[in-house]
C-alpha cells in the first residue's frame, strides 16, 4: 500500500525539482491536448517552446520580446510574492496595474503638450501611487471590517476594467482621434514616452527596473528586518505579534508593495509597448503574475525564470496561433495546466511516499 507521510521539514531536493517536473508533465499533457485538437503535438510544442529562442528566422525579434513581456510579469509577481509570504493574498494586481496606468497616463496627458524633464518621473510616481491607492481599498477594509482581501481585491479588478473603458471613451479620449476610443499615444509625446533603450529590441526602462526589483526583493527578504517580519507573519499572526509586528501595518505594507509594483508595471507598459489607454489595454499580466509567483516558489530568482517561461508561452503561443491555427484558448489552457501541475506536485516536497505492508493481525 502507498502511504503519504508528512515530512518534518520540506524536502529541499523536491522543492527545487518540482517546477522542472511540472513543466515536463505540462509538455506531455499539453501535447495530448494538441493531438486531440488535431494538431501535430511535437510541432506545436516545438513552435511554442523552441522556435522563439532558436529558430534563426524568428529569434532576432522574439528573444528581446520575451524580455519585454517578462518585465511586467516580474514586477507584479515580485510584489505579490511579498504578500503571499505573509499569507496576505492580493489577487487583484490586474486592477492595480490598470489603475497605475490610468493615473500615471492621466497625469502625463494633463500636461500635454508641455515638454519638460520632470514629466516622465512624475508620471512614473503617479503610476505607483495609482496602484497603491487601489490596493489600499482591500487593505483598509480588511483592517477595519475584517473583509477577505482575496474577494475584495479580485472584485475591484472588474471595477477598474469598467473605469478603464469609461476613461478611454470619455475623460482621456484623444481629442484629435476623430471619435475613436482610446487616449493619445504617449509614444508620440516625447516627455512621457518610455522608449526603446536599444534600437530595434523594444527593451524599455521597465525591463531594467524589473531586473533591479529581483535583487531588491532578495535583499529585503534575506537581509532586512522587514522581510523577516513578512516571513514571520506567514508563519502565524500570533507569533508575528509576539515578535512585535503590528499585523495591520503588515497588511498595509504587503498590499502597498504589490499594488505599487503592479501600478509601476502598468505605467511602464502604457508609456512603452502599449502607447495608449484603450478598452483592451490590460492583457492579463496581473493574473498570470500569480502563476509566475508560485511557479517561482516566491523566490526572486525563481520568479525571474518563471516569468521568462510564461513570457515564452505568450510569444510561442502567438506564433502557434498564426502558424498552426491553434486557438488562443488552448494556449491559456496550457498555462493553466502549468499552475495545476505545479501546485499538485508541491505535495511531493511536503510529503514522502512510502510503501507499507499491511500489519499482521
Amino acid at each position, binding site marked *: 500500500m502507498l502511504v503519504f507521510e508528512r515530512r*518534518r521539514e520540506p524536502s529541499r531536493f523536491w522543492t527545487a525539482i518540482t517546477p522542472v517536473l511540472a513543466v515536463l508533465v505540462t509538455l506531455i499533457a499539453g501535447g495530448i491536448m494538441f493531438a486531440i485538437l488535431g494538431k501535430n503535438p511535437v510541432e506545436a510544442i516545438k513552435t511554442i517552446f523552441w522556435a522563439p529562442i532558436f529558430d534563426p528566422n524568428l529569434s532576432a525579434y522574439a528573444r528581446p520580446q520575451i524580455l519585454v513581456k517578462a518585465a511586467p510579469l516580474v514586477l507584479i509577481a515580485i510584489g505579490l510574492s511579498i504578500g503571499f509570504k505573509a499569507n496576505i493574498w492580493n489577487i487583484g494586481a490586474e486592477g492595480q496595474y490598470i489603475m497605475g496606468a490610468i493615473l500615471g497616463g492621466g497625469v502625463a496627458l494633463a500636461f500635454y503638450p508641455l515638454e519638460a524633464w520632470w514629466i516622465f518621473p512624475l508620471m512614473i510616481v503617479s503610476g505607483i501611487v495609482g496602484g497603491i491607492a487601489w490596493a489600499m481599498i482591500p487593505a483598509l477594509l480588511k483592517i477595519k471590517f475584517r473583509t477577505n482581501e482575496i474577494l475584495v481585491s479580485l472584485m475591484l479588478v472588474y471595477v477598474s476594467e469598467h473605469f478603464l473603458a469609461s476613461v478611454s471613451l470619455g475623460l482621456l479620449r484623444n481629442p484629435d482621434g476623430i471619435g475613436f476610443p482610446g487616449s493619445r499615444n504617449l509614444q508620440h509625446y516625447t516627455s512621457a514616452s518610455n522608449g526603446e533603450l536599444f534600437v530595434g529590441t523594444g527593451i524599455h526602462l521597465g525591463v531594467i527596473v524589473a531586473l533591479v526589483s529581483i535583487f531588491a526583493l532578495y535583499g529585503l527578504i534575506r*537581509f532586512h*528586518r522587514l522581510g*523577516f517580519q513578512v516571513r*514571520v507573519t506567514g*508563519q*502565524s499572526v500570533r*507569533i508575528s505579534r*509576539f515578535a512585535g509586528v503590528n499585523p495591520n501595518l503588515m497588511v498595509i505594507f504587503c498590499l502597498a508593495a504589490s499594488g505599487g509594483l503592479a501600478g509601476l508595471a502598468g505605467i511602464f507598459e502604457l508609456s512603452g509597448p502599449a502607447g495608449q489607454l484603450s478598452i483592451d489595454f490590460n492583457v492579463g499580466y496581473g493574473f498570470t503574475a500569480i502563476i509566475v509567483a508560485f511557479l517561482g516558489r516566491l523566490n526572486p530568482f525563481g520568479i525571474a525564470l518563471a516569468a521568462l517561461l510564461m513570457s515564452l508561452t505568450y510569444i510561442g503561443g502567438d506564433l502557434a496561433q498564426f502558424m498552426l491555427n491553434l486557438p488562443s484558448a488552448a494556449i491559456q489552457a496550457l498555462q493553466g495546466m502549468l499552475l495545476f501541475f505545479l501546485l499538485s506536485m508541491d505535495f511531493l516536497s511536503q510529503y514522502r511516499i512510502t510503501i507499507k505492508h499491511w500489519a499482521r493481525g
Partner: protein
Amino acid sequence: MSLEEGEICALLGENGSGKSTLVKMMYGLVKPDEGEMIFQSRTYSPSNPNEARLAGIAMVFQHFSLFDALTVAENIALGMVDPPPFNKLSREIEEKGKAYGLLLNPDSMVGTLSAGERQRVEIIRCLLQNPKILIMDEPTSVLTPQEANVLFEALRNLAAEGTTILYISHKLEEIKTLCSTATILRAGKVVATCNPEEKSARQLAEMMVGTSIVTPKRTEAQGNRDGQPLFRVEDIEKEASSNFGTSLREISFEVWQGEVFGIGGIAGNGQDELMEVLSGEVLPKGGTIKLNGHDLARLNPNERRKRGLLFAPEQRVGHSAAGEMSLTENAYLTAADRKALSQAGIINWSRAAEFSRTIINQFDVRTPSTDNFAQSLSGGNLQKFVIGREILQNPELLIVNQPTWGVDAAAAASIRQKLIDLADSGAAVVVISQDIDELLEISDYISVLSGGHLSKARPVQELSREDIGLMMGASQESLSEVVV
C-alpha cells in the same frame, strides 16, 4: 506488559517514550507492526476506536473533545453510536454520576463548566459503555488537588467493581497514592514494572530518565523586599476576546529584584490573557505595568523588550518560536534589539548564528545544527532553547508561562535551575504555572489566578499544596457544591 482485572496500573515514561503510541494501539488508533495483544484470552486487534469501544476499552484523552455550545447530554449523545432518548440519557448520566461521585447536571452548557467538570463529562461518556478497561491520559493536569481527590475516589470505586484502569501521568506522587502497579517505559521499551508505593518519587523519575536527576537548588538568601519593587502591575483590566475566554479583573502584583514570583492556577483562568497583556501583544483596557517606575502598559512587545522585560509564552511552536524557521532565525526573533543583531534594519546573520550557537551550548539544546527547523526539536529541547534565548539577553524581568509544560523530567529540572539562577543574579522572574510542585520548588512568593482574579501574594514558606489548591478553587463555587 499485562493488566489484571480491577487494578489501577500506572504507565510512566518521559515524553516520546512511547506511552501514547502504546495506548493508541490498545484503542485502535495505531496498528502495531509486530506482536499481539490478548484481551480476555482472545487475540485482540482493533482496527479503529469503535471496535475497541465495542470490545470494552474506553479512553479519556488529555485534551477534551467537547462542544462548548452544547449541553452535557447533547455532547455525550454525539459520541454514541445509538443514543437513547434524551430524558433516559439524562437519567443515566445522573445515575452514573451519583454512583461514582462525579456529579453533573446533564442540561448545563459545556462552555460554562470548569475543566474538572468537563473531564467528568468525558469520563461518564466512557462509563456509559460499561468498559472493562479505562485508559486515562494525564487526567489531573487540569485539576485542582481537591478536584483530583474526587477523581481518585471515583477511580478507586470503579476498580473495586472490577474495571481495570490504565493511568498515564508524570505526577509521581499521585501515582504512588493511586496505583498498585507501575510499568515504566523508556525509549519505546518497558524498562521496569514495580509497585510504586515501594519506590520514592525520585527513584521512579530516575527509572524513567535512566540517569540521576539533580533537584533544583534555591539559595536561601532571597531578595529582601525593601525599597521599591522592580516591577509593579496595578489594576489591569481586560475584557475576554472570545465568549469562552476569561476577562482579567483588577490584576495587581509587585515583584522585587532577586525573587521568583509564582502565579498558580489552572490553565484557562486567565493565564494566556495575562501573559498577552504583560507582553504587550494585547493592550489592557486600564491599569499600569511599571518596570523601574516607567509605565510600559501602552508599549508593544519590542519596546518592552528594549526596556528589559522579556517573555516566554506557553505555546512553543507558533507563539514563542516559529516552527518552520531555523534556530538562528528563531534566535533573531526576539533578540534582534537587545543583542544588536541588526543595524538600521539590516540583519547580521553571522551574529545571529553565533548567538544561537551560544544558546545551544549553554542550555544543552540537542540539535544537529543551528539551521534545523524549530519544529524538528523535541518539546524539551525547544523549550530550553526558548528559555535560553530570553535568559541570555540579560532581562531585568523574565515572565514565563508554563515553563516545563510537556517537558521531560531532566529538562524540566534544568530549566527550573536556570530560572532560579537568573533570579539569584539580581534579575526577577515571574512564573505562571499550573504545576503546584513546580511553584513550591522555585518561587519565593505565590499568588493564584482564578477566574480572572489574582489573589494576594503570600511567601512560599507559609503555604502548603492544599492551601494553593484552595486558592485555585476559590471562585469555583460550583465545584464545592458538588464535592459536598
